[in-house]
């Protein structure tokens, strides 16, 4: 009787345990499926929300889903733990009842008819052991042979190492052919091949027409300038120093009523880079998830002359690197010398084109590891383009030949991630390449890349670029300090911590240094002593950098207000007016014209 009860308990608990554990295992995999609260739906919705802020329906949906996901996760976890405890309890019941059931059941075996032949067993066992040993050895041998280096395919190094793609452009007719050929060779089975081809053919045909139409004037443009000789070849002017020799600049303009606005165009793709001007051409770049593009616009008419897409570059990532909203994929300003123009994107893709938009070369420098997004601008010195590449993987500075893209020199740096841009400083009779960085400001020989001096003085995230005047280099960064360095020997002249710029770069004349902080204070310092001369509290934000032209400082605040100061010891605020669109980029200057890139558009202000 008692045994029957025990047996029944054991059977019931066994059935319970089996069904319950199946349930638990399914529950376990469900919990794993909804991995800790990171339901993909919610994540994608959140990203969607980042792109289109202020959509209440979407926000409500996210909130509901998020709550649901959390609840489901914690309830499931709770169920799982309770389930495990119940299972253990039942297991104990089963074991106890089963043990008691079997407790008094001793199996008394009958005498074995055949006595055990130990020798036979041992002989058998020996056989098994030998088999096992031979099997182990065979497996080991096979593995050794399989993994031996001789059997492995030699890596197809040719294709991989060849990250450079050089397309020599001789003339417009020949150009279309090699480019298409290269496209096909490089990515034979890319899904977007068709599209790309179409794009390129379209591009080239338009270029063909372009070339025919423009070729003649473009060739003649150099010897016989129709437009001003004053160029703005890089971020903050020709040497990236924030000084322009432009004259006859417009005093006031307004987008809302079109006062002094020569033209205005919507920017095809977004970017925080600044426009540059060479002759009658305006260059800038734009990028989003779909494409990275370099644009050329006519300075007089505002007509888009050409677009060059950075595509089919070997080594270019399929997935865009993570960048923040306020940096984006095209934060670096392009650079030109009037014959070539280069652009770089946060993907590490650098492209170089001639004035007609024919790609000369393109390569990928390795995706920079940068938590906001790569932002240093390019700078052209002589026949090389200089790239400050301070990222987390391998910080370095490189110079590439403008015609071929071949590396002229490259110096590794010990700096942390930096967002500021290179400048060329004139010290004595020589040019120096000056790079900001954390922790040092460094001067290089721009011809060879040889380090001339190095001053460790900065920390944190360096976004502002340096500037120089009269052989002195000034560098400053938020949460760090402002320093003045003698470019001749790299000695520290003075330092100050009172007002520091975050994004905006300083600008200097022989006597005064001017800088704008991101919290709205614009100040001037004595370049010799570092003494604070004057401060303007403007209650706004400055990301754009000041540029000195015609003895005036032109400075945009983020809200799109233009502030004009006198670039002298008095440093008076001459004028301050709304232009109409939020502006972060630094404007480009040429005689009688200013080209401004705003959040949405690019426009040209003309004095006439």
């Amino acid at each position, binding site marked *: 009787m008692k045994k029957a009860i025990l047996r029944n308990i054991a059977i019931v608990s066994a059935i319970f345990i089996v069904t319950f554990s199946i349930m638990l295992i399914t529950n376990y995999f469900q919990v794993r499926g909804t991995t800790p609260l990171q339901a993909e739906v919610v994540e994608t919705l959140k990203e969607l929300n980042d792109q289109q*802020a202020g959509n209440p329906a979407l926000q409500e949906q996210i909130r509901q889903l998020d709550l649901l996901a959390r609840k489901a996760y914690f309830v499931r976890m709770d169920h799982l733990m309770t389930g495990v405890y119940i299972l253990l309890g039942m297991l104990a019941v089963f074991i106890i009842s089963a043990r008691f059931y079997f407790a008094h059941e001793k199996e008394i075996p009958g005498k074995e008819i055949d006595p055990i032949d130990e020798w036979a067993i041992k002989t058998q066992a020996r056989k098994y052991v030998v088999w096992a040993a031979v099997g182990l050895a065979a497996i080991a041998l096979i593995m050794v042979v399989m993994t031996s280096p001789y059997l492995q395919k030699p890596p197809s190094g040719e294709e991989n190492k060849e990250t450079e793609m050089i397309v020599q452009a001789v003339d417009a007719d020949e150009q279309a052919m090699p480019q298409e050929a290269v496209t096909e060779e490089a990515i034979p089975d890319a899904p977007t091949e068709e599209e790309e081809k179409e794009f390129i053919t379209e591009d080239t045909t338009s270029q063909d027409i372009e070339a025919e139409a423009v070729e003649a004037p473009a060739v003649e443009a150099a010897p016989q300038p129709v437009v001003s000789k004053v160029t703005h070849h890089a971020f903050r002017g020709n040497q990236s120093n924030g000084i322009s020799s432009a004259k006859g600049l417009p005093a006031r303009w307004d987008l809302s009523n079109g006062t002094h606005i020569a033209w205005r165009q919507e920017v095809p793709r977004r970017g925080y880079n600044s426009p540059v001007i060479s002759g009658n051409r305006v260059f800038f770049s734009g990028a989003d998830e779909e494409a990275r593009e370099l644009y050329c616009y006519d300075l007089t008419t505002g007509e888009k002359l050409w677009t060059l897409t950075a595509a089919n570059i070997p080594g270019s990532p399929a997935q865009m690197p993570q960048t923040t909203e306020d940096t984006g994929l095209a934060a670096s300003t392009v650079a030109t010398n009037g014959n070539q123009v280069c652009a770089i994107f946060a993907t590490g893709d650098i492209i170089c084109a001639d004035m007609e938009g024919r790609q000369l070369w393109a390569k990928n420098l390795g995706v920079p590891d940068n938590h906001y997004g790569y932002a240093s601008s390019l700078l052209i010195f002589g026949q090389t383009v200089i790239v400050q590449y301070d990222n987390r993987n391998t910080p370095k500075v490189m110079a590439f030949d403008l015609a071929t893209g071949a590396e002229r020199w490259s110096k590794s740096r010990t700096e942390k991630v930096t967002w500021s841009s290179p400048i060329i400083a004139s010290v004595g009779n020589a040019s120096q390449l000056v790079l900001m960085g954390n922790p040092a400001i460094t001067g290089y020989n721009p011809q060879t890349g040889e380090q001339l001096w190095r001053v460790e003085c900065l920390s944190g995230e360096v976004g502002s670029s340096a500037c120089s005047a009269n052989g002195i280099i000034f560098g400053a960064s938020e949460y760090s300090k402002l320093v003045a360095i003698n470019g001749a020997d790299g000695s520290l002249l003075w330092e100050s911590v009172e007002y520091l710029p975050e994004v905006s770069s300083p600008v200097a004349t022989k006597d005064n240094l001017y800088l704008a902080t991101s919290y709205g204070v614009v100040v001037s310092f004595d370049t010799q002593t570092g003494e604070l001369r004057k401060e303007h509290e403007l209650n706004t934000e400055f990301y754009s950098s000041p540029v000195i032209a015609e003895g005036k400082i032109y400075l945009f605040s983020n809200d799109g207000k233009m502030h004009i100061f006198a670039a002298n010891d008095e440093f008076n605020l001459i004028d301050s007016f709304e232009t109409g669109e939020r502006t972060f980029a630094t404007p480009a200057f040429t005689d009688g014209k200013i080209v401004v890139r705003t959040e949405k558009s690019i426009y040209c202000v003309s004095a006439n």
Partner: protein
Amino acid sequence: MKQKNEHKNSPIARRRFLRLFGSAVAGGSILAVTGGLIGKARGEEASLYWQIDPQKCTQCGRCETHCVLPISAVKCIHANKVCGYCDLCGGYYRSNVKELNTAAENLMCPTGAITRKYVEDPYFEYTINEDLCNGCGKCVKGCSSFGNGSLYLQIKRDLCTDCNECKIATVCASNAITRVPLSVAYKLKD
């Protein structure tokens, strides 16, 4: 001759000798190993506890998924004395946040384990609810790239089972998890 001798010595005697010899070898080896280790075995100061070095940690997110416990023993810890008490906190809000409120679409923490309290203009005090924290390190990443790095991951001593081989340590990308002595059971920032 020799064979004969062996034959004479009964197998029993031979076995007894072998057994004695075996015992001597076994006892000897015990003593040898003990002797060899006695100098190395340490008591309390021995490095017993697994802990994360916040300087090395790269917040890869494996602490959340690889701990043997159902909910990881790794939790986020907040160093108040390092914190900037910012309103726009990189650990509290997602990057690109538009409105600074506590709506789900704005917050970084997937479990809502970070709460904040208004102190005075413009400062907020941040607190972590350990029961909700799952050690994913998202806030730590946010704080170390946009803030003072006052949020960091540590293994909670009261939760950790101190496995002989820590499963997170074996997968840690930056070798940030090592054994530490009791005296530095936490690598605190404040």
